[in-house]
């Protein structure tokens, strides 16, 4: 049964939803709830099949040795984020489920793509559906975030395809297995352009401008999805191209990558330290995390790639937790740097999850964030970049500063300590808390995959 892998399940889910949506005129709201559960079931099924059967293997999309792990963790993450979204009481249309499913499909396809054009297709599926997701919640300023995201997105997509066409003009073929470096001018220009195109997706410095505004504008559960799953997809696409497809080993390429990565880390961590809105700080911090992952990719050694993959997994989970927890704070209007007594309504578990998430982002020991950083340093050291590591230390110091500033300003720890009285907890908040617990546990258990 070679058709029982997750991609087909997702695809079938999307088709089914469209069909139902088409027929649904007569449905009332509780029927819609059924639909949501249906999508949740499809996501769960996909996750289960991924674990059992692994991924589909056709010409454009072929298995790579760790792709099963990556699709597994992507599906795991998006399944829980989805549960979090649907447990929100406010109404949202079926279109949201369709675009969510297609986004997940896109991200898993990115990992599998073994041909530049298939990579392009999957990235486009992912980004188009995320455009829809960002705008879906119609909260006041979501429009502006969506516009920014979209405009930069379109441009980068167009640039990406032009780059691919140049590569095709140069090499005559696009499948990773047969690609090889040719010192033909347009080919090299094409590769450079592809770097720019993918840079947008994984928010590297020159192309990261859209990220803070979009993260802040969209609903934080959607931001959780974007910052974790879609960014991970972008980075893995980078890995696929520059490590598997074009094993370019010229010193110059690593120098270029390293400089991009370093600028990303430093600029975003310094900017994060001066923000006065939590979501924006978290946005910049996720950009600097992406920079960190990119550093270990830039080293272009197998050790570096393994470290990068693990680190992406580590920070994606941590980002998801932090944004989801913040989502619970957000609707209780806990604002940064404001003395807020309303902290008490927020559930204690949410505060604990937020606390541990921040710890993992800052790289404190017991969490996998620390092990991720450990592996990255290990990779950097093994290829002899001592000065680079010392520089990274300073950026880490700044990140410790603003991470713990968030904690102290938002009285997170006070929330964990202070109130004793039990707040009446609604069912859906209970669901959210369980999701957060599962995710935080994964922060600790993840060590096994290091």
């Amino acid at each position, binding site marked *: 049964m070679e058709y029982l892998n997750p991609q087909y399940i997702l695809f079938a889910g999307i088709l089914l939803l469209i069909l139902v949506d088409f027929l649904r005129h007569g449905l009332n709201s509780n029927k819609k709830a059924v639909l949501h559960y249906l999508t949740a079931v499809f996501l769960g099924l996909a996750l289960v099949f991924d674990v059992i059967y692994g991924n589909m293997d056709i010409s454009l999309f072929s298995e790579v040795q760790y792709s099963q792990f990556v699709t597994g963790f992507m599906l795991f993450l998006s399944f829980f984020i989805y549960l979090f979204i649907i447990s929100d009481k406010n109404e949202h249309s079926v279109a949201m489920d369709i675009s969510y499913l297609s986004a997940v499909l896109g991200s898993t396809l990115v990992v599998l793509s073994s041909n530049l054009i298939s990579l392009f297709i999957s990235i486009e599926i992912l980004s188009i559906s995320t455009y829809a997701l960002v705008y879906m919640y119609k909260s006041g300023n979501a429009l502006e975030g969506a516009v920014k995201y979209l405009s930069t997105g379109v441009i980068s997509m167009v640039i990406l395809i032009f780059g691919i066409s140049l590569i095709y003009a140069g090499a005559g073929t696009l499948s990773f297995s047969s690609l090889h470096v040719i010192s033909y001018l347009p080919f090299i220009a094409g590769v450079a352009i592809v770097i720019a195109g993918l840079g947008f997706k994984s928010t590297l410095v020159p192309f990261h*401008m859209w990220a803070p505004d979009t993260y802040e504008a969209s609903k934080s559960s959607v931001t959780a999805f974007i910052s974790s799953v879609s960014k991970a997809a972008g980075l893995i696409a980078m890995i696929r191209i520059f490590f598997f497809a074009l094993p370019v080993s010229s010193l110059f390429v690593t120098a270029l990558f390293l400089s991009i990565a370093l600028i990303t880390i430093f600029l975003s961590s310094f900017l994060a330290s001066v923000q006065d809105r939590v979501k924006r700080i978290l946005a910049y911090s996720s950009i600097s995390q992406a920079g960190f992952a990119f550093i270990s990719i830039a080293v272009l050694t197998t050790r570096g790639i393994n470290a990068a993959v693990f680190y992406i997994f580590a920070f994606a989970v941590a980002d998801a937790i932090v944004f989801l927890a913040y989502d619970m704070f957000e609707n209780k209007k806990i604002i940064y740097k404001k003395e807020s007594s309303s902290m008490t309504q927020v559930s204690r578990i949410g505060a604990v999850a937020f606390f541990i998430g921040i710890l993992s982002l800052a790289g404190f020991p017991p969490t996998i964030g620390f092990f991720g950083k450990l592996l990255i340093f290990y990779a950097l050291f093994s290829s002899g970049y001592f000065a680079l590591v010392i520089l990274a230390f300073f950026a880490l110091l700044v990140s410790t500063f603003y991470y713990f500033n968030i904690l102290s300003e938002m009285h997170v720890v006070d929330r964990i300590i202070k109130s004793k009285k039990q707040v009446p907890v609604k069912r859906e908040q209970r669901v959210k808390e369980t999701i957060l617990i599962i995710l935080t546990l994964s922060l600790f258990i993840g060590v096994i995959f290091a």
Partner: protein
Amino acid sequence: MLYLILLPLLISAILIPLLGERKNVSWLISLSAAVISFLLSILFFILYFNKNIIESYTWFSFSNFSFSLSFIGNNLTLFMALLVSFISVMVLMFAGVYMRKEKHARFYAEMSFFIFSMLGLVMSNSLLLFFIFWEFVGITSYLLIGFWYDREGPAVSSKKALIITRIGDLAFLAALVVVFSTLKTFSISSILNSLSSMPLTALIIAGSLFTVAGLSKAAQFPFYTWLIDAMEGPTPVSSLLHSATMVAAGAYLLVRLLPLISAAGLLNLIVVIGFITAFIGALLGLKERHFKKILAYSTIESLAFMFLAIGTLNAGGAIFYLFTHAVFKSMLFFISGGLAIAFGTYDVYELGSKKLKGAWFTIPALIGFASISAIPPFMSFFAHSALTHNFNIFENIAFVFVAFLTALFSFRAFFVIFRSKAKKPLKKEFNLFFPIVLLSIISTIGGVFLYFFNGIISIAYSFDAFSFIALAASLLGLFISYEFFYLGKTQQLTEKIKGIAEKIAGYGYEKFIIAIGNAISTFGFYVGSFDFMFSNAMSRVAESTFILSSKTREIENGDAFRYITAVIIGLVAVILIAVIFI
């Protein structure tokens, strides 16, 4: 077995605070402990006569370094133990009278702990043990001086005393470290006979540090101010610590390490300092009004004599003089204490107006003051002859002047106090009466003891011409002071001498010491503020990065168009770099 001498006092030092403030009990305990240790020291003196017993115990050892503590029982140490325990018995009897109104427990506990550590110091052979007791003695003197802690005087002077003696202690520690790391042993006996194996520089460093330790403990020239202020403490303390035993420890150290000091070539330095201190002591003694402070100056002066003896390699003379000085000086302190109890003041001129002449202690006072200036029948004349045994010509001449000045200022005090006839006789307290009379008897008939002292410690003495010249000088001083102070004649001459004394010594030195103290704390203040600024420099660096990064924040001012341009610029940059370089 030698530690048996120390044990009773240690027990009393621990027992007394536990028993608390019961009436007179703590006095009895400490006195009995002192008597027991005195008897034991007599026993051991007889037992170990002319023997050289070393008992050593290893304190702790680490990888072939062994830190051992050892006692030594030879004639010198046991004689000193005998002397110390005898004087402490006398002092404790006197303290019974003097401290009747005060809180007993704390005083007697500290006193017995002091005697314990003094006896230990005297008998210790390993330098480490010597240092340990040396520090204990310093600490107890700090506690005892500061006994009346609520008064401003004792608080300041106890702090000053400990700081200055601490310089000596730390010099001692440094010397200890130097000696141990070169010779790998602490015991004095083995150090002295392996002196040749020490490198010269280490020898000189160790020697000079030991001398500094000795000088600071014995309150010699650079460090003498603390002894004067130490008189703030109760009189028994001054009599025991600051006349007989503790200050003598400095001289005792140099006596024990004489070969090392002479090998380090510091002898004439010691002689020079000895003479300077003697002159200062005599001059300042002239202008002093406080009875105990006069005695303190005379103590400094007699210690200077001991250092002169040490400087001229006459250890026996120094020890004999130490013995005589301990006897008559503590007796004089008893008298000053008795007067203070009776009349509540130490001021010499007020005492003078109390018409004391003819009271029962005028004779012991006369004996005491006469033996300060070494008048013949008394023991100190013989001690002086032993002292000046191998003086060269210059030392003898200087000694004559010093003898004249000592006689002058000691008899000044005597004549000022006992000017007018006593009408009513003073009440005789046994505890006060017995020690004073006993000590005055010893200091008179003690001279004969010099002859068979040689058996105990090798001593040579000679009554050459100079000792008689010195005697004449002191008699002249006696006569002049009789003229000036007793008969009150030629008042303006005494004022002139007092003026000269004030100008010369002028106590400039005192301000100099205080100036050093303030300099340290002000310099510390500046370094402190520098440190405060330095540690905040770190956070200033952090703030500047914040300002810098908040400026860069302006770039992303939310204008979508600017984002797109940024993307394009990034794209163009990447293409250019790729094309040019690859």
